[in-house]
């Protein structure tokens, strides 16, 4: 039996029942990584020794009944913007290329405490800013379905690793779609929880009021299980909180039409067809503020990012320029040399919209639009239990196509940013292929706190379809 054909939960069960061991799974994962990492570049750091040691420890504990989590013994990867104690954490940036944190993020502490086996740190867009995972200083992540194409971003490494069978689930982060979009590009399932559900302590901040840690795996059930381990109010994160459960019943679903260009033709049609067999009422509806939402997102996220990234000044940790006659110069040079182009672009944008004379016209206005988007979505959720919409307009583009046209790249986020603006739970599930044969995803979004409802419908749809079970190696894998 190829363990890689199992979902994370199936593997967990197999280990518990003694059909295989955590060490076996870990060895298989490490072999697969060794085989594939050179071509897809999903991993920045691989922890062979640590993973094997942990696997043996965990196996013993499982056999003694000390670890009962359904994910005990299951190997996983973590996006490299999440701190792991004593393990290199780079954010895909020269600025942190030798940064070793003295602490582990709460979410990862929990997964390890539950018996998860950390395999390594995953490649990403630098500081999580991007939609293609091409801006990493460690090279781009290549899509396992077609190595000449991107894997999406910014959690490209996380999605690619799961798609390539290198791990059973991965932990990513989603600020404007960075878990959902790469999941869609790589034909896997990616979930962003309600804002505050998972602690951000240890998540290297990009945009504080948007960032959330999410899970990427082969099924909605897997994603749900991972989130269950990670979630919880954390006293180290003042924005973390418990959300009251809301009813998981889905009776009426709204279909949102396109934004900047409509999504690949068949996507929403397929959705209608499958839903009709579920006895769930489907109705086409509109979200009139989608374009404004995108603009508000980029303004506010850039503003927060420009401030969050101020700490990278070459003084205490991270990259430090060799020259510099005084502190100001040292800081300026370190940042000039340490940051990539896209990061600098967003820092400049953010500094601009917060600056004297422009604050009201941009930042303050964007905050007002954000409130408007929240209100509009709340209104829609009075009528609809869930909203269905695309994740992106097309499947993954070719490598190198996107970076020269940043605004086009930004526009492609139009379907995903709303969930971040309003702090809503949203999942992307594989939903067919585009005309180039690349996977595309369907997004399910719910009101705040309705994570179970969102994942519930996703799970239901995955019982009626099998796109989430398809693997790139079945297809041939290369361009």
């Amino acid at each position, binding site marked *: 039996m190829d363990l890689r054909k199992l979902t994370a939960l199936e593997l967990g069960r197999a280990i518990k029942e003694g059909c295989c061991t955590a060490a076996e799974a870990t060895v298989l994962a490490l072999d697969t990584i060794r085989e594939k990492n050179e071509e897809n570049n999903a991993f920045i750091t691989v922890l062979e020794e640590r993973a094997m040691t942990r696997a043996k420890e965990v196996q013993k504990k499982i056999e003694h009944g000390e670890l009962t989590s359904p994910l005990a013994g299951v190997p996983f990867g973590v996006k490299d913007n*999440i*701190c792991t104690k004593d393990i290199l*954490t780079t*954010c895909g940036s020269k600025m*942190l290329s030798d*940064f070793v*944190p*003295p*602490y582990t*993020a709460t979410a990862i502490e929990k997964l390890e405490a539950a018996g998860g086996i950390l395999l390594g740190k995953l490649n990403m867009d630098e500081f999580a800013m991007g939609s293609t995972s091409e801006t990493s200083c460690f090279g781009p992540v290549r899509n396992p379905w077609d190595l000449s194409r991107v894997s999406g971003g910014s959690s490209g490494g996380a999605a690619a690793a799961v798609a390539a069978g290198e791990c059973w689930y991965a932990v990513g982060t989603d600020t404007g779609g960075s878990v959902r979009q790469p999941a869609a590009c790589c034909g896997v399932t990616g979930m962003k929880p309600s804002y505050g559900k998972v602690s*951000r*302590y*240890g*998540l*290297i*901040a990009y945009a*504080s*009021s948007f960032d959330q840690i999410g899970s990427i795996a082969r099924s909605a059930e897997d994603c749900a299980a991972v989130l269950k381990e990670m979630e919880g109010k954390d*006293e*180290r*994160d*003042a*924005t973390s909180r418990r959300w009251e459960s809301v009813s998981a019943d889905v009776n009426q679903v709204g279909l949102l039409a396109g934004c900047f260009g409509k999504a690949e033709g068949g996507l929403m049609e397929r959705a209608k067809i499958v839903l009709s067999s579920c006895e769930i009422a489907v109705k086409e509806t509109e979200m009139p503020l989608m374009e404004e939402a995108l603009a508000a997102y980029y303004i506010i996220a850039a*503003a*927060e990012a*420009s*401030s969050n*990234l*101020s*700490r990278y*000044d070459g*003084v*205490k*940790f991270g990259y430090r320029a060799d020259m510099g006659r005084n*502190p*100001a110069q040292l*800081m300026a040079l370190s940042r000039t040399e340490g940051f990539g182009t896209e990061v600098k672009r967003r820092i400049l944008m953010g*500094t601009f919209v*917060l*600056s*004297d004379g422009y*604050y009201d016209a941009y*930042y303050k206005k964007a905050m007002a639009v954000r409130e408007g988007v929240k209100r509009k979505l709340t209104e829609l959720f009075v009528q609809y239990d869930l909203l269905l919409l695309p994740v992106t307009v097309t499947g993954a583009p070719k490598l190198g196509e996107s970076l020269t046209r940043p605004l086009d790249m930004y526009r492609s986020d139009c379907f995903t940013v709303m969930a971040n603006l309003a702090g809503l739970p949203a999942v992307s599930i594989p939903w067919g292929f585009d005309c180039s044969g690349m996977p595309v995803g369907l997004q399910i979004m719910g009101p705040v706190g309705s994570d179970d409802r969102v994942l519930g419908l996703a799970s239901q749809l995955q019982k009626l379809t099998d796109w989430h079970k398809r693997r790139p190696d079945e297809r041939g894998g290369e361009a």
Partner: protein
Amino acid sequence: MEWEVVIGLETHVELATRTKVFCACSTRFGAEPNTQCCPVCTGMPGALPVLNRKVMEYSARAALALNCKVTKVSRFDRKNYFYPDLPKGYQISQLYLPVGREGWLPIEVNGREKRIGIHELHMEEDAGKLIHDEEMGVTRIDYNRCGVPLIEIVTEPDFRSSDEVIAYLERLRLVMLYLGVSDCKMQEGSLRCDVNLSLRPKGSGKLGTRTEMKNLGSFRAVARAIAYEAERQRRLLESGGVVIQETRRWDEEKNESLSMRTKENTNDYRYFPEPDLPAVKLTKEDLKTLQASIPELAHEKESRYCRELGLSKQDSVLLTERRALAAYYEKLLSQGVSPKEGANWIMTDLLRLMKEHSQEPEQLRLSPEHLAQVIAMTAEGRLNRGKASEVLAGIFLTDEDPAEYAACHGLEQIRDSALVTEAVRTVLGDLPEQVAQYRAGKEKLFGFFVGRCMRALKGKADPKTVNQELRRQLDG
């Protein structure tokens, strides 16, 4: 041309909470560098601030004590700028919704009362400390101070003289000490003051261009800096020059202010609401509780002691300098001691003993009850004043019962007149020559006889009684 000096103050008060404002690190002063910091206060990637509620409580109490309107919903904002002592590249402060606004503090200068307006009071975190090593040509950074809670108190430009400024600072300091929210030691940096000063022609309603002076390490430095800067601006304006709005650094050794044309002149701080911290809410109940927790403040006690207890200004000031001392005094009064007597005994014996034993009022072991007892025993004549002091000295550290102590050590005054009579007779009997000389006119010998009698009575007699008896036996 008559000039009027107009001054506003920005004072930073370090709050005496045990831990920092956004993390659990200790705020203890004087530790080895970089031993009291953590990922949060050093701005490590992935670390997040969490508000220490005690800071909110202390800040709100300070705002209430300064008669401010306290906001029910308080928010933090980021003040963005780059400097090596600011690890995150921004300071978490408050701009849009500070804790307190529109307050005032009364001051008294040369017998005249005046209100100084408080524009606003807000919470913020402190930065680290840069230590310049001239010899090695390097600058080191100590992050222990990063994240220590501060409140910044900004006044209206209501001051017209350095006397007023000093009076304000002394009052402010006492308010903070009485509230127990800070120890306000300028030498340790728990009280810092920046002075904004401008000149204008007397009678003019418009404000002149002001400069800001920093690095004032003592009240004296404040006074001197004000004098220097007022003079510098006067000379500049009178020679047709223009005052440039700038920040100036006070040099205590050279006794002059120097322009700091470097970092902070026109900084756009790009303030925006801190997304990592939710709003802090204070309910009506919270505010009521906080208001009730504010004790009678020093200046309020001072004027009450003068008005109602008839104490002199000087005595009132002395007694109210330390809250613990004023509390002690008031307890003493509650034991039935009269205000003037109580004040007297404290300012003589008690303060002297405290100094001898290097004790602070908070550390007093001698209970007000026992002191009151000694005072009563003296009034009754059971102890003479001298022996009373001895008793106090004896029980100062142990707080033993004074009556027992006096009895044990035989310090009680001899009131048995027969004993006194007997002692006087014996002494005079032993000195027939001197008695004869006295009776012949050598009045000076009286003191000598008193001394001898007191010695014979082991100092335990009431000098008055001895005097009386001596006179009787000598003259009568």
